[in-house]
């Protein structure tokens, strides 16, 4: 039996029916990684010892007849900015090259408690800054659907690992689209939960008011399972919220939901193939009797500017802790006499990559005296207006459908010299983070280069978007 392409549900079934053991499954995944990852480069590091000990534990629990949860023995990949105790966590940066996590991220701890198996840490743009995984300090990752193209980013390694069957599912993080865009580019399902629904404790912070841990999976059903496992209030993250995540799937409830189509997201400049695929998905949902309504989110066009002020501002503060003293040291102090200031300048200058430096400098600028009001304070006000657009729209509709990205996966190297062009690839995903909303990215079509469509939900209503997504997914399976 082919183990590698199983969903979480099918994996669980196979495990309980003793079609394979967790140990055998883990071996099968490492074999698959051995065969495929040389050309794809999804993983930065494999955590074999940990994986096999977790698998043995799952097998022992099953043998003893202990209650076995749905995630028992399920091989997962974890983005490298999420901490697994005792394992390296570099966030794909040289400045953390020698760092080993001192504790488990809360999401990781919850998955461990559920009996999951961690295969390894996946590649990403350095500190999650990028849209192509080309900003990793260690290597690039290729899109499994077309090796000349990027997998998207920053969770490109996680998306590629799921797409190439090198794990059952993966965790990623999403600050401006870093789960949804790579999911769209690689043809998998990506969920960015509501801000506060999943603890950020143990996620290496990029922009704290925007960051969110989420999932990359093969199906919407798997996204629901994994989301349920990691969601919940955590005393280690004061912004996490206690709410009952009702993600049980009820098709009869889904049919009552009304979907909004914001005209600002169906604009000129979006690739024809993308539009065609999105329209196909809309037609499909209409044929399932889903009701649609045209809506307007008038401040959409300001979201990119707003985001590229607020995010770098938070980045410049969060990354101040990487001083070349507490974590990895980049320059050799013995080689020359250096005072503390020189040490900072050199370590940070050499330890961070180009994009990270660009954002820290930009963030320092928008927060600096004389410019704070014109940029940072202004952006915070615009952020409020963007959120109010969504609030107003959600008075009329239950979910909003848009493209995930204006194009399909672009060629490796195509946008590396032009930061603004790279930033523009996130225009449809960024507003969601500014407003703190949940959003799901799922494949609109299955042939050719993948195209994703995005379902945006009301705060803490993951159930709605997961429900519509699953309804769409299951209709496709039947037809």
């Amino acid at each position, binding site marked *: 039996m082919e183990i590698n392409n199983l969903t979480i549900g099918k994996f669980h079934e196979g495990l309980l029916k003793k079609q394979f053991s967790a140990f055998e499954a883990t071996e099968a995944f490492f074999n698959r990684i051995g065969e495929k990852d040389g050309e794809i480069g999804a993983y930065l590091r494999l955590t074999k010892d940990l994986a096999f000990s977790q698998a043995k534990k799952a097998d022992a629990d099953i043998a003893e007849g202990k209650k076995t949860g749905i995630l028992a023995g399920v091989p997962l990949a974890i983005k490298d900015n999420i901490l697994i105790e005792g394992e390296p966590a570099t966030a794909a940066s040289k400045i953390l090259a020698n760092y080993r996590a001192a504790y488990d991220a809360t999401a990781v701890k919850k998955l461990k408690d559920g009996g999951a198996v961690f295969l390894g840490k996946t590649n990403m743009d350095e500190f999650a800054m990028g849209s192509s995984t080309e900003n990793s300090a260690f290597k690039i990752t290729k899109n499994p659907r077309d090796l000349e193209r990027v997998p998207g980013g920053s969770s490109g390694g996680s998306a590629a690992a799921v797409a190439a069957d090198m794990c059952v599912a993966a965790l990623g993080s999403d600050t401006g689209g870093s789960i949804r865009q790579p999911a769209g580019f690689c043809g998998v399902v990506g969920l960015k939960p509501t801000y506060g629904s999943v603890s950020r404790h143990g996620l290496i912070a990029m922009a704290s*008011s925007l960051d969110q841990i989420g999932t990359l999976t093969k199906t919407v059903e798997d996204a629901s399972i994994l989301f349920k496992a990691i969601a919940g209030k955590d005393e280690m993250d004061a912004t996490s919220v206690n709410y009952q995540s009702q993600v049980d799937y009820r098709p009869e409830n889904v049919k009552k939901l009304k979907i909004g189509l914001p005209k600002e997201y169906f604009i000129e400049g979006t690739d024809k193939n993308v539009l065609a695929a999105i329209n196909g998905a809309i037609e499909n949902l209409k044929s399932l009797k889903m009701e649609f309504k045209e809506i307007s989110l008038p401040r959409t066009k*300001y979201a990119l500017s707003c985001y590229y002020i607020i995010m770098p501002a938070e980045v410049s503060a969060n990354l101040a802790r990487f001083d070349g*003293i507490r974590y990895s040291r980049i320059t050799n*102090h013995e080689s020359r006499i250096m*005072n503390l200031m020189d040490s900072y*300048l050199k370590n940070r200058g050499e330890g961070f990559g180009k994009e990270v430096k660009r954002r820290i*400098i930009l963030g320092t600028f928008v927060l600096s005296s004389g410019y704070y009001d014109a940029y940072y304070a202004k952006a915070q*006000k615009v952020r409020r207006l963007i959120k109010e657009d969504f609030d107003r729209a959600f008075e009329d509709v239950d979910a909003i459908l848009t493209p995930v990205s204006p194009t399909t996966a672009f060629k490796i190297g195509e946008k590396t010299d032009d930061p603004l062009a790279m930033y523009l690839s996130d225009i449809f995903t960024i507003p969601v983070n500014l407003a703190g909303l949940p959003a799901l990215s799922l494949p609109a079509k299955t042939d050719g280069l993948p195209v994703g469509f995005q379902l945006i939900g009301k705060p803490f209503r993951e159930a709605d978007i997961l429900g519509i997504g699953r309804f769409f997914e299951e209709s496709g399976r039947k037809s």
Partner: protein
Amino acid sequence: MPTPIDEKTLKRLEELARIEIKSDAENKLLKDLQKILEYFEELKTIDTENVEPMAGGTVETNVFREDKPSDKRQTASDRLIEQFPEKENGFLKVPAVFENNNE
């Protein structure tokens, strides 16, 4: 309108951010930043009079916890100290803050 970042400002920002940019990379960085700031100009066209700034994504206010040490945190900080590149008696060792004047 003239862009607010010039070479002098960039030098100052490098100092503030504690990041040395190699001189051959400064020009490109400056151009990139100018282009990005030019893009931000569009924000001037949006009226934000009487709009309350939105500081974060959270819906929570005043989240408290008991102020007591936890073993879990102690273990984590011990592990962090273990990893300091240079340490002395459990303290982080850093280069001199001031110049050496005993020349």
